[in-house]
């Protein structure tokens, strides 16, 4: 089986795995931004496409009017649209046309597609620069990072931007290997789509530029790479119709939104950061403590091989690129005044390159083990800690901490947040259905705001009883308390409700994630 067949097999297997495990990741609070945006953008494309197919010039020009573009692209205009186009396409196909899944799951399938693409590209990159064994290792390390597995399904921009940065790395390497007009065009298109995904990408392009210089690429190659980046910027602009009108003002709004992002609380090493930013080391520490030990150790070996050992130039080149992208993605969040929140999500692309480095780090073991079965056995063993993490933390992947850090218990004891994203755990709905068969009032604390929209969505899908409604805690029959220390009111809320009977508690390794309290039943009764 050739490299491309292996790649197709790996990507297809990942696609199936992702599609059949959608329910393992609870909805996130980002769904209320990205799902309506994806739906709106997709509808615009459907309308414009239909006008084009029917050669209806009037309808087509209406689609491109400022009114139509503003209406369609206003939702979530704080972020560029590419990932939402893909979520929208999967929404149109899997929900609207085929009716196979609900709207959120349909959007998630678009993200899963990008995740599978990232896996295929990681495989191809490592297979072509190192070996098939290490390509499987890199993909295995990537798959067996529990937090990443959550993001593979989440209806957000973080996995899409990871996938697009992997695509940028792939395209840049291919362009530098051989300068052809076709490769130039394809690389520019990839850069354009990536830039139209999320703000992490310009930093990745900086890393790619540094890599080209580190690799001492010929001046002409560097110039062509730079030109493809410039063309990429233009392509990304063309892909974002929101920017077609009032361009200067909207561009300024976009920049201001990200440079003065509204504060989001983060709990880190026992400190509650919101108005003040977490210390510079937060992203580095968060990256390290959310990776299984074997992956982390072999990534370190991969860095050592790449920077200190005499190895094949192709492998070294890939290792250098992976190292630079990792450092720049995480390092960008260490800069002064850059907001950091949401665990690992803001530097998610780094994890793909850490997996590549970990795969490259198996070089010596590959040399020592010439027998194929022995290689398969050692790889399976080295992936076991991550795989066990996937199994043990299923449904609670954002609570995962590396086993070397003590897992969820270690994270909680070190003062790290044990979850974020105001997750819509499906067991909240099932326990409320069981406890309130005739309906009733429920308060979700400490942050009720996001859960109101979950209740509505659950009810639309028939997952939650129609008469179970959110309400203020004073009127609530049941209180759902998420155990999140990043909310300053949390200690008081727990003190207030702890005397009520806990009718359900979700926990991981004993660490509580949420509790459902019966306000009518005091434990003393």
């Amino acid at each position, binding site marked *: 089986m050739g490299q491309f067949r292996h790649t197709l097999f790996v990507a297809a297997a990942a696609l199936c795995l992702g599609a059949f495990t959608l329910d393992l990741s609870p909805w996130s609070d980002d769904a209320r931004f990205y799902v309506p945006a994806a739906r709106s953008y997709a509808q615009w494309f459907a309308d414009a496409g239909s006008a084009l197919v029917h050669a209806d010039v009037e309808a087509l020009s209406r689609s491109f009017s400022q009114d139509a573009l503003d209406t369609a692209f206003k939702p979530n205009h704080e972020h560029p649209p590419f990932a939402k186009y893909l979520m929208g396409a999967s929404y149109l196909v899997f929900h609207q046309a085929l009716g196979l899944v609900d709207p959120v799951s349909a959007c998630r399938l678009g993200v899963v597609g990008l995740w599978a693409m990232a896996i295929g590209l990681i495989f191809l990159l490592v297979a072509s620069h190192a070996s098939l064994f290490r390509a499987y290792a890199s993909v295995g390390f990537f798959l067996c990072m529990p937090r990443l597995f959550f993001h593979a399904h989440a209806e957000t921009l973080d996995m899409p931007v990871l996938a697009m940065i992997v695509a940028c790395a792939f395209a840049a390497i291919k362009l530098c290997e051989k300068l052809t007009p076709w490769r130039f065009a394809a690389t520019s298109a990839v850069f354009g789509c990536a830039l139209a995904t999320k703000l992490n990408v310009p930093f990745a392009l900086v890393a790619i530029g540094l890599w080209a210089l580190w690799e001492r690429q010929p001046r002409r190659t560097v110039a062509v790479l730079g030109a493809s980046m410039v063309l990429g910027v233009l392509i990304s602009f063309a892909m974002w119709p929101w920017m077609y009108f009032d361009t200067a003002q909207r561009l300024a709004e976009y920049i201001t939104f990200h440079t003065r992002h509204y504060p989001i609380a983060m709990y880190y090493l*026992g400190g509650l950061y919101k108005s003040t930013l977490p210390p510079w080391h937060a992203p580095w520490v968060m990256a390290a403590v959310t990776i299984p*030990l074997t992956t982390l150790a072999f990534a370190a070996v991969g860095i050592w091989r790449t920077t200190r050992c005499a190895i094949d130039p192709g492998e070294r080149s890939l290792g250098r690129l992976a190292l630079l992208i990792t450092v720049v993605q995480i390092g960008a969040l260490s800069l002064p005044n850059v907001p950091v929140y949401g665990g690992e999500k803001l530097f998610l692309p780094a994890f793909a390159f850490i997996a590549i480095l970990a795969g490259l780090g198996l070089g010596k073991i590959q040399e020592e083990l010439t027998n194929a079965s022995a290689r398969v056995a050692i790889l399976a063993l080295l992936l076991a800690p991550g795989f*066990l993490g996937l199994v043990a933390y299923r449904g609670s992947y954002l609570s995962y901490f590396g086993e070397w850090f003590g*897992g969820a218990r270690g994270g909680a004891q*070190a003062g790290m947040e044990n979850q974020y994203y105001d997750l819509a755990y499906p067991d909240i709905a099932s326990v409320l259905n069981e406890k309130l068969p005739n309906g009733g009032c429920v308060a979700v604390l400490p942050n009720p705001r996001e859960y109101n929209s979950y209740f509505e969505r659950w009810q639309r899908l028939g997952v939650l009883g129609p008469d179970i409604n959110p309400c203020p805690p004073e009127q609530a029959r049941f209180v759902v308390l998420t155990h999140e220390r990043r909310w300053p009111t949390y200690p008081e809320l727990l003190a207030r409700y*702890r005397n009520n009977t806990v009718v359900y508690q979700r*926990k991981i390794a004993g660490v509580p994630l949420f509790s459902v309290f019966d306000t009518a039943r005091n434990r003393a009764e």
Partner: protein
Amino acid sequence: MSAKPHTFAAIVLLFISLWSFANSFAPLRPLHTSPGFEEATNFLAPRLSDPKSPAWVMVWPPEQNPSLPHLPASLRATDAVPMQGTSPRPSIDVWLLSPAKSPAPPELDETPQISSYRFGDVELRLYSTGRAP
């Protein structure tokens, strides 16, 4: 294995990893079943009976949360340090109730420890942001 030092090192690493993983899920002894828990709560209850007292009882670490309902109902008990920004709230006392020799939460690293008591396998430590040690 001596001819395969990297493979040997990988296997050692794997054992450390699997041992740590198992350890991170090892069964816990709930604090309320530990010897000394009742004495500790009996010690606390009269001291904190005033509802206006600025004192909190904190069950620690967080996986000991199921012991909270076993504390007297009159106590203001929780499993997290009440915070104001990056520091514990000013002018509060925190009675940390934990298994003996458990490290204190990082939130209290800078907070003076006033006293410490041992009841069987249970430790009770008083931290105060409002007074000197």
